[in-house]
């Protein structure tokens, strides 16, 4: 057996990030608390550096390396770039919050970086093992981050819940994968597809079980109803910057493993998982939108809103067409941008000793800061799917894919649910514009946050007026 040196070029961004994360882990030990900005700067450098490398090394062809366990294709280039970009934004938004709460520590950044690395591995996974490895790397970092504020009992409770339930989901996924391995005799995703094609001639009980286990685990990780129970508690209990982190980039990585495992790997079983996803999507849309109305805590409200958005993404995948997959990619990228802005606004309003996580805390924002009230207006309109914001085209693309495969009544149900959803987004607009402020503290978070948050909000409108740019990108990679 000859030892072959793998092609390292497609893996360079991951290697860079891994090296930097290890370096920061050690270097941070020698940095005094007063100089923590160095850690922050190094973190941003690693993330942005990996972003530059990813864009620079992007290529139109599919490159498989590392003995067939790692794939770099246009989809992975696009998703990794977005994940890295959003992670950089997340670190930026999080800094003022961490600084005012004695949470400004190197561990946050190291855990964050390893989480980002986990996502990149998930996105580029070409074998069941790589996929699981990336997922676990991400999950372990997230469990620790949720408990990052160790004096908060609420955070500890959320982390415990997240850990136990998340581990069960990982176990379920692993079990499903082991069955797939048993049936097909390979861990390679293309091999799995080929194995399924030969095995699916007659009814195969093990295959049905494997599929069910995989779908359940993926639904669990994304937070689709009825596997959503952990999501509101974790969103609520975690420190807001961590909620921001969980709610944005990991959703993109989650969609990536659905694409790799379900759409590509188990594509021949589309007819079987279509019904499963349909049920998950319909339930997510209903529960997410209806229950969100009852929330008074904005983090919980966003948690339920996430569930409803997951419903839309699953609808698009359910269609099983190229248009559907492109719509899912478009939707999840749009959603990550919206969620980053939404939680960014919550962080923007919070200050020492004040979390601003109540919906009422948005009262009278138009009088305190007309500009950021406008930014929040754009973000809420985007989440509600109102034109001319980005959220509308995301919904339009999904609905188009769903109608195209003949599920017109499902599309009707989805839009009805988004009308219900519009209510709770409008309620925030109502608090901002129609009510008087109770608290008139000066709002200012430094130039960097102001600028990036403004750009984040304006992007909703900018990409809403010119959605073609992002739409052709997502359509090209699928």
């Amino acid at each position, binding site marked *: 057996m000859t030892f072959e040196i793998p092609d390292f070029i497609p893996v360079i961004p991951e290697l860079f990030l891994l090296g930097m994360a290890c370096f920061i882990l050690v270097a941070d030990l020698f940095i005094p608390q007063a100089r923590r900005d160095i850690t922050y700067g190094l973190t941003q450098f690693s993330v942005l550096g990996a972003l530059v490398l990813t864009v620079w090394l992007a290529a139109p062809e599919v490159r498989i390396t590392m003995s067939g366990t790692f794939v770099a294709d246009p989809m992975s280039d696009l998703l990794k770039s977005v994940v890295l970009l959003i992670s950089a934004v997340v670190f930026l938004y999080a800094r003022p919050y961490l600084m005012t709460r004695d949470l400004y520590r190197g561990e946050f950044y190291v855990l964050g970086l390893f989480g980002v690395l986990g996502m990149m591995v998930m996105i580029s996974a070409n074998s069941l093992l790589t996929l699981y490895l990336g997922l676990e790397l991400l999950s372990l970092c997230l469990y620790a981050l949720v408990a990052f504020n160790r004096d908060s009992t609420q955070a500890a409770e959320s982390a415990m819940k997240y850990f136990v339930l998340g581990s069960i989901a990982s176990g379920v996924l692993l079990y499903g994968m082991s069955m797939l391995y048993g049936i097909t005799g390979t861990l390679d995703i293309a091999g799995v597809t080929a194995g399924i094609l030969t095995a699916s001639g007659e009814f195969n009980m093990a295959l049905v079980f494997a599929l069910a286990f995989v779908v359940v685990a993926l639904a669990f990780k994304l937070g689709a109803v009825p596997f959503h129970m952990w999501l509101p508690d974790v969103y609520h209990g975690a420190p807001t910057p961590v909620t921001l982190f969980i709610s944005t980039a990991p959703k993109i990585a989650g969609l990536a493993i659905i694409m790799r495992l379900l759409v590509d790997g188990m594509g021949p079983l589309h007819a079987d998982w279509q019904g499963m996803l349909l049920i998950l999507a319909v339930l997510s849309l209903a529960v997410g939108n209806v229950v969100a109305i009852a929330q008074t805590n904005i983090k919980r409200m966003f948690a339920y809103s996430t569930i409803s958005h997951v419903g839309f993404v699953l609808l698009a995948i359910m269609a099983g067409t190229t248009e559907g997959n492109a719509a899912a990619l478009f939707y999840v990228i749009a959603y990550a941008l919206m969620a980053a802005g939404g939680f960014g606004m919550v962080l923007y309003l919070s200050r020492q000793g004040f979390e601003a996580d109540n919906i009422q805390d948005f009262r009278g924002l138009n009088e305190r800061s007309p500009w950021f009230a406008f930014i929040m207006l754009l973000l809420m309109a985007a989440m509600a799917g*109102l034109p001319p914001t980005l959220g509308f085209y995301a919904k339009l*693309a999904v609905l188009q894919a769903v*109608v195209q495969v003949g599920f017109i009544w499902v599309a009707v149900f989805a839009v009805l649910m988004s009308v219900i959803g519009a209510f709770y987004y409008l309620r925030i607009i109502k608090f901002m514009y129609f009510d008087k402020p109770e608290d008139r503290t000066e709002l200012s978070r430094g130039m960097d946050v102001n600028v990036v948050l403004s750009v984040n909000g304006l992007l909703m409108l900018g990409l809403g007026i010119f959605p073609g740019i992002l739409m052709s990108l997502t359509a090209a990679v699928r």
Partner: protein
Amino acid sequence: MFADWPLLSLVIWTPILGGLIVLTMGDRMPEASRRVGLAFAVLTFLVSIPLFTQFDRGTHEMQFVEMIPWISTFNIHYHLGVDGISMPLILLTTFITVLVVIAAWEVIQHRVSQYLAAFLIMEGLMNGVFSALDAVLFYVFFEAMLIPMFLVIGIWGGPNRIYATLKFFLYTFLGSVFLLIGLIYLYTQSGSFAILDFHHLPLGMTAQMLIFLGMLLAFGVKIPMFPVHTWLPDAHVEAPTGGSVILAAIMLKIGGYGFLRFSLPIAPDAAMALDWLMVTLSLIAVVYIGLVALMQQDMKKLIAYSSIAHMGFVTLGFFIVFMIYNNTGSWQGAALGISGGMVQMISHGLISAAMFLCVGVLYDRMHSRRIADYGGVANTMPWFAAFFVLFAMANTGLPGTSGFVGEFMVILAAFRADFWIALLAATTLILAAAYTLWLVKRVVYGEVANDNVAKLTDVNRREFWVLGVLAFAVLLLGVWPAPLLDVLDATVDNLVRHIAVSKL
């Protein structure tokens, strides 16, 4: 000289740009924001005039067409153009917005720049609705319009404004999502979002029915038709004067426009099969809502119900055409109903705007909309009384005013279809006269009712000009409707020819 200018883009983007400029001026310079706002409103009106003067009256084809690719993935274009149906509505929009900006001059003191910006942006979006020839572009403008209106009612509205504005938003949004599904279905069938392609797309009866009903929900809520009209009285009562004017004069017309641009040409067979439903709902609006209007204690609510009744007349005119065909076996005279509905829309745009502005004049002085708080206003405000009586007469459809032309045409068309329908429709002449004139009697005439009325001052110069210009327009259209009818002719004839051909 304007032939090669992108006039439609200008009437859409000039006010939006103006709105953004006003918005950035902030609250520190209210006077300057007003001037800039007015300048942009007037500029937009001037830009829209060549649309009328350069309009080719001999063709039904789209004019002033602009088309550039917008979202290539879905074959969506930035495609604009107007025909005889949409051009007058654009002119109405730009005209009324100027008046609304002037009417707000001294009245709005709170967050002036945001108020003016909302109206200017709304103007651009409404012009977009009337000129869009791509379904997604239309839908984007159609929905985007809701946000500024939501804010206008919610920020500057009356005591119950939050309930009213949420109801307005959710009702309209609920209706329009069905339209969206319909449009997406049409896209999957035709491979393009061009509205004119939809017109020529053959469709089965079930598909037509569902599309028609989906669109009926969207446009029926907007116009509004009985029984989905209940948001309108609430929204009108709580909205500030300018909001009520735009709502009544233009936003309701978008519903009517939608029927002509989408429902009738895309699903003519479904429209024919469901004409009984449309005519019945229209007659209920005319008769029952007319009776409801009679009972109102609040001036704005009364005018709001009167709007619903008048819009019932519009939908009657649009859908009576199928009954004319069934009854007489020919499409002769069908154009009369549609043209009548269109004239009624333009005329109602002017009259309802004037009526709401009149109520605004009273409200600014007395801070009450209750009819019982007034009486004998003519004694203290003679000029105002003259205007108010004129507009009330126009509202009842007095010959010589614009209100008469449209109603007369629709009733004539109704006679061709069925005597009893015409009879019921004609009761509007009695009912409208009853509720409007009774309103005039209680508010304007009689003895001076109380000290507050005795202290009223007559209209100032600004109010005089606003009402005067509207009075002129109402009378001009009443005695000489030919320019409007000329514009409508070719397009309406083509529409009738189009719906006469089954798509099955």
